[in-house]
């Protein structure tokens, strides 16, 4: 008997009871659909995070003050005050760090900001002019903090577009307006271009002030919260990381890297961390979806067992007329594979619709992975074979007399 005939016969059999066939494949539809949707959701959010992090600059290194260890006591990372303006200056001018291009010492803190009519709480970053180049910040209107501002400790501020809207609304030009930060009056001299991003920190909700002003006038501190550094090229990132590391160890009079009171991150490190987090998350969700696929497979097995029982007489007749075990097994396996394969096709369509909706709601790009679709096809056919095997075997092993006698 040719396969084409068996397949067309199987389709005829399956269309006799459409409701049952539909319900049987529903489990597979939901399983495959959710796997596809979750994989593409994971991939599109990963892409979004990656492009966001890459927009920060791919040759960027960030030095953060680390935990301080004194005997058994270890303080939280970032809480120490060991990173100073002198450290930043040394990275730039000591001559021991040769692979670094720009150095941007920063002091960032959270503060209440008010105008005559509104108030908000936002991130204040003390910066020097190099900041724009290091962090790829562009000015939409007005100008950025200058060297003169930093030296003179001027009370000027550059605001992010989100902050500008929060403080002044859509229609007012913020340049020239006054705001109060920590009850001190600052004049706005510029607005930055939106960087976008919905990640862990909104890069557009921020106020930039001169570094000296932030440290001395606003927060009364003499240390830095971070030093951002650009390497001369992406290929010397590791060298830059090492050179800065040894310089700071020496300056902080520490012997060993394990004692370091600072840490150096590259964008790649952050990217890797975020990728592995979203990857784990995607895997976890897909695992949950795979369980529903398993349940769907058991549903198929159940229906096939019912079918075998119902068609005992037919199977007996077929065997009496000369059907061999292999023929019967093939017939029933093809039926179950058609069921799961149809489920797979509808599941892929459902998954694509779901991930399209996700992409609209979460405003990420619509990614459909070709591999995921191939996998879904293979998995659905595989489930048909796996869960159809036992019922098909049972059918093939029926004794023709028992089966013919069966009422």
């Amino acid at each position, binding site marked *: *008997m*040719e396969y084409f*005939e068996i397949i067309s016969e199987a389709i*005829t059999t399956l269309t*006799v009871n459409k409701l049952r066939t539909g319900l049987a494949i529903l489990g597979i539809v939901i399983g495959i659909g959710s796997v596809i949707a979750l994989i593409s959701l994971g991939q599109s959010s990963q892409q979004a995070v990656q492009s966001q992090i890459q927009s920060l600059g791919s040759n960027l290194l960030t030095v953060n003050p680390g935990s301080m260890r004194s005997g058994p006591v270890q303080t939280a990372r970032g809480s120490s005050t060991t990173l100073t303006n002198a450290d930043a200056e040394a990275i730039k001018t000591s001559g021991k760090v040769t692979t670094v291009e720009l150095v941007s010492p920063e002091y960032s803190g959270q503060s209440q900001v008010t105008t005559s009519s509104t108030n908000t709480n936002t991130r204040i970053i003390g910066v020097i002019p190099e900041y724009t180049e290091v962090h790829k910040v562009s000015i939409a209107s007005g100008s950025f903090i200058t060297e003169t501002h930093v030296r003179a400790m001027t009370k000027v501020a550059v605001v992010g577009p989100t902050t500008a809207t929060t403080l002044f609304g859509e229609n007012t030009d913020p340049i020239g307006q006054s705001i109060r930060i920590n009850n001190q009056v600052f004049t706005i001299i510029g607005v930055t271009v939106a960087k976008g991003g919905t990640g862990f920190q909104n890069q557009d909700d921020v106020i930039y002030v001169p570094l000296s002003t932030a440290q001395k006038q606003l927060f009364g501190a003499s240390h830095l919260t971070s030093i951002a550094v650009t390497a001369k090229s992406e290929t010397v990132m590791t060298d830059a990381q090492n050179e800065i590391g040894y310089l700071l160890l020496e300056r902080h009079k520490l012997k060993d890297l394990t004692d370091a009171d600072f840490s150096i991150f590259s964008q790649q490190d952050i990217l890797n961390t975020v990728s592995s987090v979203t990857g784990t998350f995607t895997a976890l969700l897909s695992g949950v979806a795979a369980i529903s696929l398993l349940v769907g497979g058991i549903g198929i097995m159940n229906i096939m067992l019912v079918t075998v029982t119902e068609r005992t*007489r*037919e199977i007996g*007749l*077929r*065997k*009496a*007329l*000369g*059907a*061999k*075990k*292999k*023929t019967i097994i093939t017939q029933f396996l093809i039926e179950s594979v058609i069921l799961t394969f149809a489920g797979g096709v509808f599941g892929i369509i459902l998954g694509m619709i779901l991930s399209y909706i996700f992409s609209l709601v979460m405003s990420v790009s619509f990614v459909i992975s070709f591999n995921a679709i191939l996998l879904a096809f293979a998995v659905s056919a595989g489930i048909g074979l796996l869960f159809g095997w036992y019922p098909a075997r049972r059918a093939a092993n029926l004794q*023709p*007399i028992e089966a*013919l006698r069966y009422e």
Partner: protein
Amino acid sequence: MKKIIEVIHLRKVYQTGNIETVALADVSFTVSEGEFVAIMGPSGSGKSTLMHILGALDLPSSGTYLLDGESISNLTDDELSEIRNKKIGFIFQAFNLLPRTSALKNVMLPMAYAGVEKTRRQKRAQEYLEMVGLGHRLHHTTSQLSGGQQQRVAIARGLAMNPALLLADEPTGNIASAQAEEIMEIFQQLNDSGHTIVMITHEPDIAAHAKRIITVKDGAIVSDLQNKKQIRSHTEIKQDI
């Protein structure tokens, strides 16, 4: 004459727990090519068991069964399937056609299992259906045919592989008597053209159409006689029912 069936000291015992039931005690007989044999007996006489063994649907507990010269013992399921396919044409009491399937496809089924090429299958199926007077019902599905017509499809299916033996199990049990006469006429015509037929029945009226009648009781043959008063059926097979 070539022996189609040769049964020697056939015994079949069913074991249910500790109780042994002897279905066939000691049965020996032969059927030669071109015979039309009716096997009669009341229910429980062992004639169904005998039919299953003759049909290679079941194996004897002991004894020898040669079908068309081939020994039917120590065979696997698949080997038995192949023998049934090639050597035996079954005609069942309940017709046992595939539901929702056309007459043509039903007749084609055994040939499909034998691997006959499709267009040849179709041509032969059509010829056999015409032979049993159903040339105008090729594409009717099972449920669109009357009982007598269904049994004629089953006969065409039984003939499809040109088997050595046509084995009929109560072939008229489920159909009206007028149509039963038609079926008997087809059997006699097939027998006249050389087909060997073994028919299991408990109705003397039907058995009377055969040339030889074997009577079975309590698992043993009690009589084996040539039927000198064979009834010849002459009905006009109605083509357009």
